[in-house]
């Protein structure tokens, strides 16, 4: 119930294309859904996040779509660039409680080829 599922495991996209990563969760108590970007040798860095009371959030080329009834959310990277090549983790968390561990999905390795 604490799991966050993520697909695909790896993704290759042409420069300028759209990268789409999908995630699903079971626990309806989750109330915060961040996406993290990780480059080799670095820690995860927050990319964009959404709360379940909105269906979409956009920041630049990055958009989260959220479907509360289906318990699914996805990351869309528009106009993908080689610099976007990294591992992307969707995650879920609880903000209402004093302990707010982040539950990570298994990750998607994105390669954007020129």
């Amino acid at each position, binding site marked *: 119930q604490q799991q966050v599922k993520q697909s695909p495991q790896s993704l290759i996209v042409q420069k300028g294309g759209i990268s789409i990563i999908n995630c699903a969760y079971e626990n309806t108590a989750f109330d915060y859904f961040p996406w993290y970007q990780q480059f080799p040798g670095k820690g995860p860095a927050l990319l964009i996040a959404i709360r379940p009371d909105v269906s979409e959030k956009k920041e630049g080329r990055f958009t989260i779509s959220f479907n509360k009834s289906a318990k699914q959310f996805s990351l869309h990277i528009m106009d993908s660039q080689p610099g976007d090549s990294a591992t992307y983790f969707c995650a879920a968390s609880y903000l209402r409680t004093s*302990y707010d561990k982040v539950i990570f999905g298994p990750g998607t390795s994105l390669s954007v080829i020129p």
Partner: protein
Amino acid sequence: EPEVTQTPSHQVTQMGQEVILRCVPISNHLYFYWYRQILGQKVEFLVSFYNNEISEKSEIFDDQFSVERPDGSNFTLKIRSTKLEDSAMYFCASRRGISEKLFFGSGTQLSVL
């Protein structure tokens, strides 16, 4: 942007030895965490620490693990008797408030031989 600093970046130890991984969280942050990532796998929560005590720990965080904030700036993870399966990248993270952005350090790669 402020950074969470972790030392050392790599640590090699023999099975059964004690290791201490060190972290300097961002200075005005109040919530501290340790996560680990086994090679090629997902990032896993180990422990959260607030107000000088553990607020939550995972099943991984057994009696061999402990955390400490010995002074106003450092946050440490100790593994008393390392096992081969403790080999992983360990990330320290911190945030200022409960709903604020979580910042991760660059990690300590622990190799247990």
